[in-house]
């Protein structure tokens, strides 16, 4: 099931560290591996289209795991 979210990309320092998307309404998603380097910039505001991976677990455990299909940058920091 595809979802569309807008929020800010953040580096999260849980465990060895991971990338997070914090949506405008305050929900934290963990960005799944394989996301483009251009997306993973701390402080960048983005609109992301993707899918929550129920079958994936992570060491960061900061929220649902979001597999990004496509994104557009709204504004960079």
């Amino acid at each position, binding site marked *: 099931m595809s979802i569309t979210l807008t929020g800010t990309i953040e580096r999260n*320092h*849980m*465990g*060895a560290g*991971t990338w997070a998307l914090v949506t405008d309404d305050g929900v*934290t998603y*963990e960005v*799944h*591996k*394989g996301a483009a380097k251009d997306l993973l910039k701390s402080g960048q505001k983005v609109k992301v289209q993707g899918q929550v*991976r*129920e*079958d*994936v*677990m*992570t*060491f*960061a*455990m*900061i*929220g*649902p*795991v979001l597999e990004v299909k496509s994104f557009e940058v709204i504004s960079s920091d």
Partner: protein
Amino acid sequence: MRRLFLLCLFLIGLSFALFNFKGLASKGDFESIVLDFRENVPASQISAQVQAIAQQYNVTPRLNSEFSKSDHVYIVKGDRKTLAALKKSQLAKSTEFIEPNYRYSAFEVPNDPDYSKQWNLRSIKVESAWDETKGSGVTVAVIDTGISIVPDLKDTKFVPGYDFVNDQVAAEDDSGHGTHVAGTIAQSTNNNYGVAGIAYEASLMPLKVLSSFGGGTVADIAEAIKFAADNNADVINLSLGGGGESQLLKEAVDYAYQKGVVVVAAAGNVNQNAASYPARFPHVIGVAALDATGEKAPYSNFGAGVDISAPGGAGRGAGGILQETIQPDTAEPVFVSFQGTSMAAPHVAGVAALVKAAGVEEPDQVLSVLKQSSLVIQDDALNYFGAGQIDAGAAVKLAMHGQISFKDFFRWLRDNGYLNPRFWIDGGAIALLPKMAMVLGSYLLAWVLRVYFPFTWSWSLFNGLVAGSSGLFFLRGFYIFDLPQWPFRVLGSSIPELGNAIAGSHALNPLFASVLIPLGLIALLLGHRSWKWFAIGSCLGVASCLVVSALVSPTVWGLGSGILAQIFLIANALLCYELAALATKGEQTA
């Protein structure tokens, strides 16, 4: 001829004992030397001599503390050479003694230089657990990003694992997370390098299910759990989680549980009410994280699924959990602090390994030991902490309780001198087997008593056990020219045998071989904190001696050596045991 032979044995035994004593003394650790000047030496002479030492050895003698002045106790820095030189110098004549200033430590403190930064290990009281076990013989599977053998894991034991991400045997870490988690469990410790781990004599099984990015599929995780269970892992650590309830994963956990594996998982880092999967499955110990002050870590999940809490740290500085791991981009080893319930779970897995090593096998029992021994945190309405903060020392003590461990027994034999060669040489001169039975019997009685009324072994108790059961019985074999033998017989007799020791008879005196003397000792000594234990020990020792006598040589004055004497001895033995039980029980309620 026989006397000469025994004298030779005595001398051999004595030299053995002296040799051993020297060996023990030279093991002590010291960096400074104590000088105790004689009280009658005038202060001016002392200060002159102190000056002289300062010049000759290039050291600065100082008073140990402001309270040392009246006793003239000075401390100088120095090693064995300085000690020997000082002892030979003129100075020795003005002192009462010159001796090494030995460093005593209550617990095993590892020599890892950065151990002092591991607040987390001290907060779970791991040092007192190390007195009993370091996890030897137990295998902990780390299902994570793999483990790289960084320098501070070089002395740690490994068993083969598997990399489920790349489908290969070698399960190297490419993230830094798994190596860090493994370090908390079993970082090489006492190796003069880096930091310490909890169960550092346990073996690690590296199982890689998470990619360098830190994620992995439930299919791989489930397979890894089954792999661990099939390859004799005792504990599984899962510093990972997610929101999906997977039937496959649940079945894998149940499979491991059926095989007696303790499964530990992190509660998750969303600060939400309810642990994530797999921590919230039944048969998984869900672990919440604490910060350095013992409060809930800000990120830690809480509520349903949290069974216990452990240090997870907060922030990546001094408040985090420090271990050696790798830099993900260069694979270079690095000491770094991480935070998360990922860091809390391996504390519990490590302590679970210690509990297993202490002899508790079943997962439910391990959990119950961990919960019962944890430090309860009051006013925990939202279940931030589960049963409380994990306490390694208390957990291992609870696990050991009620089990005759070889270590316990060995320690007891050693403490009582039974491992001394002199014991074996001289013991041969008298009836050894019944004596050994009496001593072992008294130990067993003390152990039975400890199961019902936990107490701490003490010197007084040991001495009581020996006095009551056997005395220093090897002394009975001593015959020295021109000396009466009876003092040796008395020293070598147990309390019940005292009545016939002076006369040298074999028949027991019914006044001594009864509950009367233990009763008297209890009545006299019950009020004293440590002598009371001597009295309790002697009750148990006498009980054991009487039982063995009843079975081996039941000869009592006036009662013959038949059934009457046996009933008398057994009845008194029971009374002695009851007496000890009552006295110990008093200790519990007091």
